[in-house]
């Protein structure tokens, strides 16, 4: 569990002069690989929170107006350096954080983040980035109130990906890392590496790790229980008549 009371993981956003008091909302993060069931959980949680009278903002990675297109263009050409790609993603994340997440939290929203800096960090770590460099780079990120991590074996992810898309994706198979020229083989090795890095970050950042093979309902029950505790502790209970 996250034990830090700090607002940011590092140096933060000094020019904003924020403090906990001005951020009356909550930040809940759901992390996990592609096909780990994140989006389903976010949608269910949003539904439940809203029916209980909470304003919710759901946000994800790579959806900003700023460099979203640049990332798409660069990935199509497959000509991007590793540092450039990680900085583009960092730019995009910073944009979401400052222009969506923080304003919503100031306004008392519950922000549900479908992936956060940890996905960006594990991707870079697998590609050989230095962990200390990444930690400091993402030192401007807010410490979430809760981080759920849906953990799944690469083998299960493989079957889910094939069921969902009918084929394996170039980037989700980590083909740019050149682990193997065979996409099937590369997928397993890449997803194994990502999982190892997630476990490594868990030690540093403290995730609430959830077994992703459990049924979606079971997982949702668990998440709601945890979120209820979080909201009771720090937020007025709005709706009692359900």
């Amino acid at each position, binding site marked *: 569990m996250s034990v830090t009371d700090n607002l940011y993981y590092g140096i933060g*956003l000094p020019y904003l002069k924020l403090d906990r008091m001005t951020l009356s909302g909550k930040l809940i993060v759901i992390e996990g690989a592609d096909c780990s069931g994140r989006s389903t959980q976010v949608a269910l949680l949003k539904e439940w929170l809203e029916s209980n009278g909470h304003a919710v903002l759901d946000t994800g990675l790579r959806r900003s107006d700023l460099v979203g297109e640049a990332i798409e263009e660069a990935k199509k050409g497959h000509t991007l350096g590793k540092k450039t790609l990680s900085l583009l993603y960092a730019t995009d994340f910073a944009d979401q954080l400052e222009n969506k997440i923080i304003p919503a939290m100031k306004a008392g929203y519950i922000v549900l983040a479908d992936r956060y800096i940890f996905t960006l960090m594990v991707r870079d770590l697998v590609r050989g980035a230095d962990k200390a460099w990444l930690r400091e*780079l993402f030192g401007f990120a807010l410490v979430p109130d809760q981080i759920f991590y849906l953990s799944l074996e690469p083998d299960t992810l493989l079957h889910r990906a094939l069921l969902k898309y009918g084929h394996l994706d170039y980037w989700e198979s980590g083909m740019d890392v050149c682990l193997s020229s065979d996409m099937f083989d590369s997928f397993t090795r890449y997803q194994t590496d990502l999982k190892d890095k997630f476990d490594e970050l868990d030690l540093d950042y403290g995730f609430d790790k959830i077994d992703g093979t459990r049924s979606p309902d079971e997982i949702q029950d668990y998440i709601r229980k945890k979120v209820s505790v979080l909201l009771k502790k720090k937020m007025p209970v709005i709706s009692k008549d359900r």
Partner: protein
Amino acid sequence: MKKARGARSYKNLPGKLIIVEGCDGSGKSTQIYLLKKWLESKGYFVFFTEWNSSDLMKKYTKKAKRKNLLTPTTFSLIHASDFADRYEKLIQPHLRAGHIVLADRYIYTAYARDIARGCDAEWLRNLYNFATKPTLAFYFRAPLEISLSRILTGRDEIKYHEAGMDLGLSKDPVESFKLFQGIIKEQYDHMAAIEGFTIMDATKSIEEQQVEMRQIVEKALVNYSSPINCAKEIQSKIMVSIKQAEG
């Protein structure tokens, strides 16, 4: 335990990196252009790159600035992305191949501007620590009034970010530009000793400055030989031996 911060000298880069820094209107672009002409006339292959010019990033940065979407952190990161793209695709490969690379502005421009916008200095040094330390970093220093008058004469408008309007220093663009350039100059002056800049007196004549610059560069290139010249030498040797064999 603190790690080494900022740019480091990477050992796998046999090329030479020469960069210029200074306020707008300091004359640095003219000087590096003349330096390039000279190096080329001496037979060197020279690769030139300038700030904010990545093919990939240029249009997005422009759009973001036009729409005024940037915060100090995203301003910093979008420029870092531009730099990283040029560094990974252009600067580093040329240095690895042993070439001379000339850069009009380098990471110190980002340090000066982003610190002025409120980013943390240490965070910036970490951000850019993938970039190698230049062989020579020229800082063209001029009193603020001189660079201001050079840039302000003959111009009807200064762009929003160029004037540092996003810092909220003044509502008048010209006034804001002056204040912003003042902060940038302070940052450069502060960095000069720490980063080992070669300070150039930008009030001297263009010719005087160029003579001085060429002398300094010549010294830095004493043990340098261009890989392309080498290739030519080897080629001509091979040609000679082929002719001899044939003869």
